[in-house]
């Protein structure tokens, strides 16, 4: 009841092609996350699906039915905007009721669904407040509430958490994940936050300049990035990338190794280096190690207890099993 298919969908603003023809299928009940650098077309893609933008060419199908020319209101999709776009002059109750009112749902039915949504989202005490009197997290729940009462075919989220502070984000992330588990409705989610993408998605779509670079589960992307772009984009801190002789040793144009896949030791190892800045997070420590022969320092993760400091000499050993190899075009060598 929420399968979305994009068939050669192309979008241009004037002469500028923002999305070159693109195919994508989102299965019913799936949680799909779009990631990519700023300006790569994530929002545009979402708005195309929502019907807030016209496609320049191509076809959008929702549940096998052609929706390309349907107005947004007819697509049975609910969208949660980055700014939530709550109606500031209406109470929470009225905000949630609005789509039902537009659809002509009878009053009692409205009440029932509002109660249910409010309970599910922990909003019961705030139903009579205005959005201006709510915290960021509460607002977001209202936005979701407004979406779920419609029982949409799919939810579309456009960076819904980017306005929240870190602590709230973690909480909301879990809530949305749980909501998805419970409702089993298709969700399409745009974010530029690594952690959100990795933790929430069933399937991540990595976009660059309107092109799909890779589609896959989070671990697939982490473990087997299809190209250098994805390798560099997924994972934080970034994968260390080496080219030149070191890469040639592995028959590749470039090799990559993530900070967490390098062992650090004071005694011996593959590369010898000197510790630069180190960042102690308590749980972990990130060392930035300057290795002779490489321009960029290596980032290495060690446990929080390791007691090395600025200027210490250390040896680094990559875990060969986790080494990524890329060819001259930047494509993964299997």
């Amino acid at each position, binding site marked *: 009841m929420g399968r979305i298919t994009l068939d050669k969908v192309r979008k241009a*603003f004037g002469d500028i092609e923002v999305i070159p023809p693109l195919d994508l299928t989102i299965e019913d009940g799936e949680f799909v996350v779009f990631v990519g650098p700023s300006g790569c077309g994530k929002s545009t893609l979402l708005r195309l699906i929502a019907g*807030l*933008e*016209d496609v320049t060419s191509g076809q959008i199908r929702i549940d096998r039915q052609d929706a390309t020319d349907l107005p947004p209101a007819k697509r049975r999709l609910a969208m949660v905007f980055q700014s939530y776009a709550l109606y500031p002059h209406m109470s929470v109750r009225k905000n949630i009721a609005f789509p039902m009112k537009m659809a002509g749902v009878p009053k009692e039915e409205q009440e029932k669904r509002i109660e249910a949504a409010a309970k599910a989202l922990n909003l019961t005490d705030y139903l009579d407040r205005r959005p201006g009197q709510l915290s960021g997290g509460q607002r977001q729940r209202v936005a979701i509430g407004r979406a779920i009462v419609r029982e949409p075919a799919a939810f579309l989220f456009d960076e819904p958490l980017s306005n929240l502070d870190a602590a709230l984000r973690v909480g909301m992330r879990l809530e949305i994940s749980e909501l998805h588990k419970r409702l089993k409705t298709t969700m399409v989610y745009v974010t530029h936050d690594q952690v959100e993408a990795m933790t929430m998605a069933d399937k991540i779509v990595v976009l660059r300049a309107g092109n799909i670079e890779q589609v896959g589960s989070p671990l697939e992307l982490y473990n087997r990035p299809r190209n250098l772009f994805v390798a560099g984009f997924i994972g934080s801190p970034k994968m260390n990338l080496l080219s030149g002789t070191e890469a040639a040793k592995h028959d590749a144009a470039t090799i990559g190794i993530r900070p967490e896949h390098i062992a650090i030791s004071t005694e011996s190892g593959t590369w010898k280096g000197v510790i630069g800045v180190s960042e102690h997070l308590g749980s972990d420590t990130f060392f930035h190690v300057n290795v002779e022969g490489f321009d960029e320092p290596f980032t290495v993760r060690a446990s929080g207890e390791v007691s090395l400091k600025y200027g210490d000499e250390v040896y680094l050993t990559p875990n060969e099993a986790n080494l990524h190899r890329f060819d001259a075009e930047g494509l993964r060598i299997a």
Partner: protein
Amino acid sequence: MARAVSTRRKLLTTVFAWLVGLAIFFPILWTILTSFKTEAAAIASPPVWFNFHWTLDNYVTVQNRSNYFRHFSNSVIISVGSTLLGLIIAIPAAWSMAFVPAKRTKDVLMWMLSTKMLPPVGVLVPIYLIFRDLGILDTRIGLVIVLTLINLPIIVWMLYTYFKEIPGEILEAARMDGASLREEIIYVLTPMAIPGMASTVLLNIILAWNEAFWTLNLTAARAAPLTAFIASYSSPEGLFYAKLSAASTMAIAPILIMGWFSQKQLVRGLTFGAVK
């Protein structure tokens, strides 16, 4: 909403909007057209649109009758002068209200506005007597003072709304950087508020330019601005449509031209804090 608006719809909107725009503008257009007609053509029935004998006679007549340029320069001096004087008084006041708000700030602002509700006719005689005793009847300085006082509340309010949009942190930064209050206002606040000030200035010039009660009643020959100029055309003898149109065109043209060239500025600024 960036969905393509169909060209057909856009064309329809265009036609409609232009019709409405022209309808609203029409009285001014007609006045300007009439000012180039002869008196006979001005009242021709049915009215003539463009195919008449264009003449500048009316302008010549009007200029011969009254010294337009003196009225004009009085208008300029009075409206610009009162606006500048108003700014000088209003900037500190608006600064206080915007950056050091007290409980009574809103009340003070509203009180200031309420002084504009004094019906001028009711206080003309007292003011006239005061002006007579001060010896500033029929002087530009007298009018500058009156118009400053009249428009001050509006200036304060407008500046207040602009200042409130300026993040207080920037002023605090200046303070941390060692700027005195005066320096803070001159080097930081004022330049940042330039767009807002520009529209305040524009609006006040317009209001002062068009103010017709005080300017008429407190002047005679020397300080009389364009409002007094137009007052001598309000019902002359004989056919006067064309001459009236010419005089009207001359009276409103400067401000109209100024308004047109600065309309972007004005549009952006004229919000009185109505737009959050």
